[in-house]
């Protein structure tokens, strides 16, 4: 089974701070997705990155796919309380597009 390790596991920061979440694997993925999950809800897709070295921006969120397509990072600039949630990376392999999910990073942003 492929593993995706996320770090840190927990992050508690104040509004306005910047942060980076890492997603690492020894396996190569054809694409990588980032999801956010809020309490009581299922995960919701934020972005998909496909090409090694690709950088995608979604407002204050910047996603990067590693050159070798084994790792990814999520950077949040000027975090807000609305960013609070569980962030999950998910690597995609094979024709069935099965996803291997990371261990998750729980982010808490306080005023």
């Amino acid at each position, binding site marked *: 089974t492929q593993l995706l390790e*996320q770090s840190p596991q927990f992050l508690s920061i104040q509004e306005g701070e910047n942060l980076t979440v890492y997603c690492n694997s020894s396996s190569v993925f054809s694409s990588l997705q980032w999801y956010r999950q809020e309490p*009581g*809800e299922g*995960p919701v*897709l934020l972005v998909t990155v496909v090409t090694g070295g690709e950088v995608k921006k979604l407002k204050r969120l910047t996603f990067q796919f590693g050159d070798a397509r084994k790792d990814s990072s999520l950077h949040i600039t000027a975090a807000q309380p609305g960013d609070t949630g569980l962030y999950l990376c*998910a690597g995609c392999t094979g024709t069935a*597009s099965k*996803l291997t*999910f990371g261990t998750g990073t729980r982010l808490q942003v306080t005023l």
Partner: protein
Amino acid sequence: DVKVTQSSRYLVKRTGEKVFLECVQDMDHENMFWYRQDPGLGLRLIYFSYDVKMKEKGDIPEGYSVSREKKERFSLILESASTNQTSMYLCASRDRGGTDTQYFGPGTRLTVL
């Protein structure tokens, strides 16, 4: 908007009971998935289905079975519930279009006593 619904948000069952978790999607997606979510382990795939009456084991199928008789409905069955199956269960359906997105239901928190 895609909607994935799960039959129960919370469920409490006793050891040895047969448990059915139901999932329905309204977007005519061929692919559907069942995951369990545990702290520090992320989401782990139990079973998935390519299409009606087709199923394939995921990473942790032991103790579970599934049924897909209609395209919109994917059921997860715990034949004889055990305490180590206490978990959050998430169903998803997949859009095979450009974004390859999986759409998740709100989850069922199952407690087995």
